[in-house]
């Protein structure tokens, strides 16, 4: 009986396969949960300055040919900077804060709805979570913009709804859905043994949830929550498509006021990019720090 040597060795020079459970390498240094924050936080801090580099270098690359030089573009940006910062970027921050506030509040309600014992509430909460979590943000923004009236009358008082308010509502919807998933996941991450121990001490379901389960998973919810805040902030320029006067809209208007010279594009947009980086980068770093700290619990 001639022993037949296999021409290929599984796992060495051919793809190995097995029905058995396989332990994959453990890589704690690469958190997979928060792609955006992890990606952002892993950048060195000088990345922001690299982003601003075109802005710095632009004046030196000036052509003598045109009447409008790069130096002119640069000085135009300097002129507009305080305005873009105060009326533009600050507004992005305000929109993000309001959207986060509303999204968090509604998301917690929806998330608790998802773990409700009532099958109807559970289904409805699941449906809205999935609907808003899987819809393109821009589509949601347009729906809110077009579906909401420009003013509402409550008890005879006419309250106007400005576009930025609609943008806040539109952006808070996907945030709400994602916070809902965070709450659901965090509650389910607490071992069922905790529920059983509390049940056997005659705690009601409400008491178990509010006194025992949620206090335990509150800390675990903070890093993903902050991750979504960073994502939301970076999504606020979407509002410019609705005509909300945030930084991108104002940058465009400023460039128009400067006669739309193409040389203006790079300095102005680099400035906006840099602002977002310097705002979101610390948030991402803190998120990853908290994630590491809270993950080594118990």
């Amino acid at each position: 009986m001639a022993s037949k040597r296999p021409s290929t060795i599984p796992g060495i020079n051919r793809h190995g396969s097995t029905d058995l459970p396989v332990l994959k390498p453990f890589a704690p240094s690469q958190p997979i949960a928060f792609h955006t924050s992890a990606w952002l936080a892993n950048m060195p801090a000088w990345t922001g300055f690299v982003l601003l580099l075109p802005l710095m270098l632009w004046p030196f690359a000036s052509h003598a040919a045109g009447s409008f030089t790069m130096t002119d573009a640069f000085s135009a940006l300097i002129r507009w900077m305080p305005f873009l910062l105060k009326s533009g970027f600050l507004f992005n921050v305000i929109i993000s804060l309001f959207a986060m506030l509303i999204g968090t509040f509604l998301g917690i309600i929806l998330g608790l709805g998802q773990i409700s014992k009532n099958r109807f509430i559970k289904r409805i909460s699941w449906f809205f979570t999935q609907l808003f979590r899987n819809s393109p943000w821009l589509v949601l923004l347009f729906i809110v913009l077009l579906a909401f009236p420009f003013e509402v009358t409550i008890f005879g008082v006419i309250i106007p709804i400005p576009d930025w308010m609609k943008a806040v509502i539109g952006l808070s919807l996907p945030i709400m859905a994602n916070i809902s998933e965070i709450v659901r996941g965090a509650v389910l991450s607490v071992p069922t043994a905790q529920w059983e121990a509390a049940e056997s001490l005659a705690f009601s379901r409400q008491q178990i949830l509010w006194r025992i389960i949620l206090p335990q998973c509150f800390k675990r919810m903070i890093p993903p929550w902050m991750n979504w805040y960073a994502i939301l902030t970076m999504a606020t320029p979407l509002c410019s498509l609705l005509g909300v006067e945030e930084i991108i809209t104002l940058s465009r208007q400023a460039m128009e006021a400067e006669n739309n010279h193409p040389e203006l594009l790079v300095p102005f947009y680099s400035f906006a990019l840099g602002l977002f980086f310097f705002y979101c980068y610390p948030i991402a770093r803190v998120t990853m720090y908290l994630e590491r700290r809270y993950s080594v619990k118990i």
Partner: protein
Amino acid sequence: MLKKNAETIVSIKDVHKSFGQLEVLKGVSLDVKKGEVICVIGPSGSGKSTLIRCINGLNDIQGGQINVCGIDLTDPKLDKLELRKRVGMVFQQYNLFPHKTALENIIMAPTLVLKQDKAASEKRAFELMQKVRLEGKEHAYPGELSGGQQQRVAIARSLAMNPDVMLFDEVTAALDPETVKEVLVTIKDLAQEGMTCILVTHEMGFAREVADHIYFTDNGVIVEHGSPKTFFNKAKDPRTKEFLSQIL
């Protein structure tokens, strides 16, 4: 310790329990009198834990009857919270609330469920900590305590509700041999004070010493039961003999 004429506090009659297709309890009956200590022993997967989890309503039964302290568990209008105020339970994995200190773990249920005065329940908690021999550890978090200490806090936590019956679900299975002893001593103290205890355990020596009655379960039925003396020395059923020969 045997209470011949005491009232029956837990009565289990022909209980059937299935998880989906798998029938775990196939007609189990047992009675526990007030002040009795019952040990349920048997191989893994024989339904021991399921049986005692049915007693405080953590598992629902599909057939038969359970009556605990006059509360009928098959009653569709059963108030589980009322039942659980009367029945304490201690788990294999301690299951203390990790975000609360030992003292807070103990006073939580009395203050929130029984609406007791906080100062009074704290006073009682200190007494209980003394009883389980953990004076001075009142303000430690579960993470700062050893397994044996955590388990004793868990016992104190259950006792704080002044239950009529205590259920112990393999409470020493996760402990090392040395700490097993300190937990068993605590349970023995309890038993001697007249607490009705139902234990699922693999500690044969302990069962022989403390139990009033021993039940041996296998494959969802009670194969044999009797006093520790007759059970360990004169077991009749071949399955019991086989089990005992392997562990003794």
